[in-house]
């Protein structure tokens, strides 16, 4: 291959600075082990031919950190699409006539998710009471507690685990009326609420 391309690739290979380092670990978790190689996508845009694939190389000004070579690693788009977690989950609000669906991948924090729910169910507003996120239907004075069902089938309180872990494990969301959650303040709800199916 052209010496120019190869030298760019080798440079990236051995330079120690990781600009965007994506891991599935908890935020603030252990850094990647030394000697482990960075993914190829952290390299500078190589302009190895314009691509019709919009997911990959951007044809205009290349972003300095994340760029990819078209078609590498050689994985079929079918497989890539299957692995892309499509995180649409149902959202039920007690008392609402129908459910909605949200794509959790669209948000990067609980605050954003709750704001989106606020938009969707227009009667609701988020109230930050003493740093606890509560959702209220201000017209009726009904308070809701955001809960979710995880992979194991348990009902959990939204907010305990880091956002990424939540996205991984959340199967559906339910805004439960606070009155139903009597006796369980958010601080002691770590057992989750077992709901009969």
């Amino acid at each position, binding site marked *: *291959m*052209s010496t120019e391309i190869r030298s760019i690739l080798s440079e990236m290979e051995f330079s120690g600075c990781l600009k965007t380092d994506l891991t599935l670990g908890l935020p603030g978790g252990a850094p990647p082990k030394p000697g482990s190689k960075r993914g190829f996508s952290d390299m500078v845009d190589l302009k*190895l031919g314009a*691509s019709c694939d919009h997911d990959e190389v951007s044809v205009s000004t290349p972003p300095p950190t994340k760029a990819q070579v078209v*078609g590498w690693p050689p994985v079929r788009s079918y497989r890539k699409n299957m692995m892309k977690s499509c995180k649409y989950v149902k959202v039920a609000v007690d008392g609402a006539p129908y459910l909605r669906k949200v794509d959790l991948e669209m948000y990067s924090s609980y605050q954003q998710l709750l704001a989106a729910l606020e938009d969707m169910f227009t009667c609701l507003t988020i109230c930050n009471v003493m740093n606890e996120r509560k959702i209220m239907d201000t017209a009726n004075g009904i308070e809701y507690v955001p809960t979710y069902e995880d992979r194991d089938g348990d009902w959990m309180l939204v907010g305990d685990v880091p956002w990424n872990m939540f996205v991984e494990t959340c199967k559906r969301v339910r805004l439960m009326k606070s009155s139903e959650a009597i006796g369980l303040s958010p601080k002691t709800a770590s057992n989750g609420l077992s709901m009969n199916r």
Partner: protein
Amino acid sequence: MCLSQSVMNYFPEEVLEHVFDFVTSHRDRNAVSLVCKSWYNVEKFSREKVFIGNCYAVNPERLIARFPRLRSLSLKGKPHFADFNLMPHDWGGHVYPWIEAMSKSRINLEELRLKRMVVSDESLELLAKSFPNFKSLVLVTCEGYTTDGLAAIASNCKFLRELDLQENEVDDRKGHWLSCFPESCTSLVSLNFSCLKGEVNVAALERLVARCRNLRSLRLNHAVPLEVLQKILVHAPQLNDLGTGSFTHDPNSETYVKLKNAMKNCHSIRSFSGFLDVNGRCLPAVYPICASLTALNLSYAPGIFSNELAKLIRHCKKIERLWILDTIGDKGLGVVANTCKELQELRVFPSDPYGVGNAAVTEEGLVAISAGCPKLNSILYFCQQMTNAALITVAKNCPNFIRFRLCTLNPIVPDAATNQPLDEGFGAIVQSCKGLTRLSVSGLLTDQVFLYIGMYAERLEMLSIAFAGDSDKGMLYVLNGCKKLKKLEIRDSPFGNMALLSDMGKYETMRSLWMSSCQVTLGACKTLAEKMPRLNVEIISENEGGAGEGEASLDDRDRVEKMYLYRTLVGPRTDAPDFVRTL
């Protein structure tokens, strides 16, 4: 005329035909047809199964003229690198003209198997209505149709035995295609709709499974929940091959208990896949079937953590074919090496297909497998890093590879221990594995590796090269050395005109050559096309619509971005889009 020929002529044609019935492989039948005119004729009128490796090498008319008794057709369209977005959309590979021609000629088509072709709803409808004995449709990595097309197949093919959709891109209209199987349909043996994204009518599915007593293979899609799987297994304990849909449920529920019991009754399951969306705590339900499994595909199940995976694999002592994700880790591969002594084929896919982040498998996992699994003959391995020492060890442990595909996530990563190119490692592989027919190389590679390949890979039929080599010599070693080469695909490597034009006749002995982002120029391609009329030399432009930056302004001295050439009996194709220019 020699004695043996006159002796053969005493056999009436019926006897020859009967003898040829025992010759089933298409290569053998091709050889038979070359012996003499009389054998050619007997063979041509008796062949029922035809395989066409490149749909543009011949045309439907010639197919039908030569094989009027055709019953089973297998066709391949786009070249392999099209799988990785290297081929623009709409390049070609349409099946419609084939179906139309066979329909008009009253071919008694019973089976159609397509790979990398564009299949429209119109083609499926025509197929469904034209061939009353149609039995089997297998579509691999195809696209272009919707569930409406499937509805047409389900409604009209009265004797349908097999509907197998593997990794297709299907526009799911969320209709009720599955409900279109009439109540009278009881002939299904194999049904695979795992690639469909939408919901199916589960009641119709259950009824269908219940009435098809010969059903042996069933692969469900993501939308079929565990409750329904459980009911299906009760109806079909005779299944050999099962692909689950969603596999997540409360492990304390009654449904889960029922599933466990249903699984215990499925004594015939030998092949298992799916787990699209999985709850690790539900895995124990499948332990009872693990002991008899010979094939296991967990490569779409990123949700299984490596320790759960290891636990599962420890139950699978008879596995011959295993497809998994690199989340298994080197340690998990160690478990495979200790447990799966019958393993023949292993595929380890990247859990992050965009190549970001750190893969959990390295050369250690590969070495462990090679040491523990003496029957290993086929591997596809995506890994973070590799070393020559590991490859040399693997070559020593496993001289029986027929397919060896290594894919380092960084395409030019050197030997992780010595920083040298990986030439010696791959050299050891080709030297040791005399039966190697398919090879994909990656990592830092110089011309030296191609010297080895040319020297030792005598049976090699397909070679994939990316970001490798230093000069034309590399490609020349391969073209001169690999006598059995059928498919050569090269990307981003410094091979140019000298290599391309050195042995033009070679390309007529091959199915195809792909070169992209290499050093070949338009002028050289034109020369090749001129000298070799039985090759189609296609120049494929980046922009769909050809004009502007396309080949209008391309000079003979300019490099060609994508070239695909293939031998053909029928000249330039008539369905080429604007951005494809056949020289």
